[in-house]
């Protein structure tokens, strides 16, 4: 990939999948992407479990795919919709890695003559409380990777990954300038004024991450009701000063578009250099002997 572009024409496809109907959902996504064919964006982000639905219980084993297969399906989807255009796609899916199952998100580069998986992130924080039951069915990822794209360094955080302040922090310290957050959040909390509490909470935490680290945040929320639990959509794009540039409604599938000026990142960081400050103080914080961390290095992954 050549020189980093300063302009990122981003789109979020907020999907509303039919439960478990992967082929039909692919088709619907293709129809939606065709709408972009006259002016294709540089990057399209889709939610967590974008093409299967989120609450699959044991059916996750029927629907999980090898990463290469999902990459091929996404690439074909794009070529069918916007033939000839180069694009990056980021989407969440259930991954079958030779019998080990993950809640994953992929960043894929698609050119007319081939595709390349740029990064595969396996969700690290699997919510298993209350309405959530992920770790009953899935294994957790062990790495927070950042990766180079033609728009600079990025990180993928799947849903709860982004709820722990330390995760966007580490991603930013490792150089990520754009955080992509595919998510599936069952909406709840009706006591707030004007919107569900969980939607307001998500927007707050994403804005705080953007402001603190001077990063763009692209949040893709799944939508549609699943067994009474309404996925709260509300996909949004947030600039490095915390401004919500574009936001989708909670209900129904839609496409959100916004052109991002990536030079905003350096300007925001010059005004509020918290990330630089953190870089110098981070060793003192993380090497604190009172922290409950294993000493002498991390345990082996497997």
């Amino acid at each position: 990939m050549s020189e980093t572009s300063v302009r990122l024409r981003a789109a979020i496809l907020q999907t509303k999948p039919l439960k478990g109907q992967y082929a039909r959902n692919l088709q619907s996504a293709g129809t939606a992407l065709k709408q972009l064919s006259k002016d294709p964006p540089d990057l399209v982000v889709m939610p967590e479990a974008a093409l299967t639905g989120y609450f699959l219980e044991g059916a996750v084993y029927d629907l999980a795919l090898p990463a290469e297969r999902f990459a091929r399906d996404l690439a074909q989807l794009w070529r069918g919709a916007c033939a000839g255009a180069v694009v990056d796609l980021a989407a969440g899916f259930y991954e079958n890695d030779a019998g080990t199952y993950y809640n994953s998100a992929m960043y894929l580069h698609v050119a007319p003559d081939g595709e390349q998986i740029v990064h595969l992130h396996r969700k690290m924080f699997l919510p298993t409380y209350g309405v959530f039951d992920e770790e009953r069915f899935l294994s957790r990822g062990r790495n927070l990777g950042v990766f180079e794209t033609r728009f600079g360094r990025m990180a993928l955080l799947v849903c709860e990954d982004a709820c722990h302040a330390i995760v966007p922090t580490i991603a930013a310290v490792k150089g990520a300038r754009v955080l992509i957050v595919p998510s599936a959040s069952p909406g709840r909390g009706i006591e707030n004024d004007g919107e569900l509490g969980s939607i307001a909470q998500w927007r707050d935490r994403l804005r705080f991450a953007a402001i603190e680290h001077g990063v763009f945040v692209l949040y893709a929320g799944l939508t549609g009701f699943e067994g009474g639990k309404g996925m709260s959509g509300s996909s949004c794009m947030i600039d490095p000063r915390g401004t919500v540039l574009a936001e989708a409604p909670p209900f129904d599938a839609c496409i959100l578009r916004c052109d991002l000026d990536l030079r905003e990142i350096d300007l925001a960081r010059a005004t509020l250099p918290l990330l630089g400050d953190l870089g110098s103080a981070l060793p003192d914080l993380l090497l604190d002997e009172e922290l409950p961390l294993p000493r002498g290095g991390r345990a082996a992954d497997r």
Partner: protein
Amino acid sequence: MLPIVEPARQIPGPPGIDPAVATEWLVAFLRDELVVRRQTRAVLGLSGGVDSAVTAFLCARALGPDNVYAIRMPYKTSQASSLADAALVVEALGIHCATIDISAAVDGYLQYEPNADARRRGNVMARTRMVVLFDQSAKLDALPIGTGNKTERLLGYFTWHADDTPPLNPIGDLLKCQVWELARYLGVPGRLIDKAPTADLEADQTDEADLGISYRDADAILNLILLGYSDAQLVERGFSPQQVALVRRRVDGTHWKRHLPTTAMLTGTAINEFYLRPVDF
């Protein structure tokens, strides 16, 4: 002297609700969940009370009045005003309405059980209403919609496998006080909101007399119990030990009513134990 700033101490009230947000959410719920079930029409029992009225208003918003069928199912001892109050809802919304008297069906069985007490008789009526509702569902090709609220679900103040049987329930996660607020927002006729709630299974019956506590107090206590507060913490916040004990006893004594029947597990493929598929799969 410096001023001391501290929040006023008062007994917690029931949780609030943003009725516009809740309405938007519940309308989307009804639309989406009917699509999954390949249905376009709803049928519900309309009692003349606020719960079924709110449910009818939500269904009419979500599906259009022409797709909503209300069934009034009086028993011979039901108050005449209940029928009239249900009619107010039908008129306000322009939904379909039928009246099916369950007296003959209920009495057809109860003639063999002349000594059945009020509770048993009430349960027979509630279950008969579901026989009617599900048959009307088949006749009208319309999905039965439940009308039970969260307060009665938590207190076990309903007939198991009767009021709780319809496959969709839009208000089952709303406490009674929240249902009242939602009713005001939706424009439910004031009579239905202001009158004393009643199961209308016996003459002069009211919910609050049956339960021994007001809905306002019950909802406030239930809310804190669900959030994990202990009885002692509730008493510290100003509720009487008797009220707290009453609500706690009803909740703890009725967990079984909020579950499907218990099935003996014998294999490694037991349904809903090992073989796990979501309802909309």
